[in-house]
């Protein structure tokens, strides 16, 4: 499913495509899934679980919470997606139109984790919205994936660090941190 989506989009993917690539029979497919959408959801869930494991590994390893942990988490995310281009496409390009709920879940998880790491900034009243920051990050990553630059995702670390820190430490400090990264 993941591969086929990457090649021809979810919309154009057929059960025949999936079973062909997996070298299984249609009967086997239908033992596991009612339709291609269920298969997609399972593929996306797996991609997310693997990504999450990689990130928790790296961020947990960075020791104390804070900017250092955030940086490690972003770096791990980019490394993982760059190494798994088909999964990157599935999550970033296909999921938003196939199942917006996946995006919502991701956003919820990431913003909760960020909130746990860093307190929301008190910069002049209502500052940047962490949910919107998540949106900025995905648009930037999609840009790279869509222009065949998946392998170069790790180069986005400074910009994603700016985006991630923005709601919590404010624009000026986020600029500083991103600048230190380059």
């Amino acid at each position: 499913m993941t591969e086929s989506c990457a090649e021809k989009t979810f919309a154009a993917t057929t059960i025949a495509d999936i079973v062909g690539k997996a070298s299984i029979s249609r009967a086997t497919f239908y033992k596991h899934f009612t339709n291609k959408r269920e298969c997609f959801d399972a593929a996306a869930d797996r991609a997310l679980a693997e990504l999450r494991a990689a990130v928790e590994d790296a961020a947990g390893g960075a020791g104390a919470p804070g900017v250092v942990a955030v940086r490690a988490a972003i770096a791990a995310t980019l490394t993982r997606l760059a190494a798994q281009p088909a999964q990157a496409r599935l999550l970033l390009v296909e999921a938003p139109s196939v199942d917006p709920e996946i995006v919502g879940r991701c956003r919820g998880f990431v913003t909760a984790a960020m909130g746990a790491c860093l307190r929301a900034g008190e910069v002049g009243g209502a500052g940047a919205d962490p949910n919107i920051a998540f949106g900025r990050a995905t648009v930037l990553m999609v840009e790279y994936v869509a222009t065949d630059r998946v392998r170069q995702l790790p180069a986005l670390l400074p910009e994603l660090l700016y985006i991630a820190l923005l709601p919590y430490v404010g624009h000026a400090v986020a600029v500083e941190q991103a600048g230190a990264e380059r």
Partner: protein
Amino acid sequence: MSEQGLPAAGDREIDSLPKDLHLWKLPRGRHGLPRELVDRSQRERLLASVVRVTATKGYRESSVADILTEAGVGRETFYRHFKDKQDCFIAANDALVGDLESHVRAAYDRPGSWAQRVHWGLAEILRWFAANPEVTRVMMVEMGAVGPIASERFRGTFHRFTAMLDEGRGPVGETAIDLPDIATIAGGAVFARVYEEVVVGRAAELMDLLPQLTFELLLPYIGEAAAGEEREVAIRSARR
């Protein structure tokens, strides 16, 4: 900073298509109109039709036959104007984006500070989407199901809009981030948030987001204080 309100919204007809794609039903048979006019009308009917059919059935489920029926146009005529369904859809998308762009351009080119102009341009985008919710959904969500050409088109449109942010901005101040993708980082906030609302059918309420999105759009360029001022102006304007 002077408090300039938004340009008068006027009576915007809440319709499923912008006026210049209205359906004209020509009388059947000979009507004595110049060929060019007939052609143009038929082409426009087909453009309006592909959008309507896609909005109803989804792009993949829509056939050329569906488009012909909705438009009241014959098959030969269709293939005189378009190569296939995709060609027709992309032409419709281009016409709609062109309409949106001309509205945004008009708002953005009004005299004012850069930040004000960005706010007015953004207001126009949200207003257009809110006034054309079904069309917006087709352009944003269905485009993903059409294929690589459409997706590239879509990205091209996004970049044309974010490029406008650089116009008349003046020299990069200390506050702006010195990162290559600043326009994408700024515009991405708007796009992602708008998409979220459109995909669940809430495009009609997009104007509610104008103040916060004004803030988020300007923030990477001018920092919290200045972006916050524009947000305040937007909130006050909305109350009037």
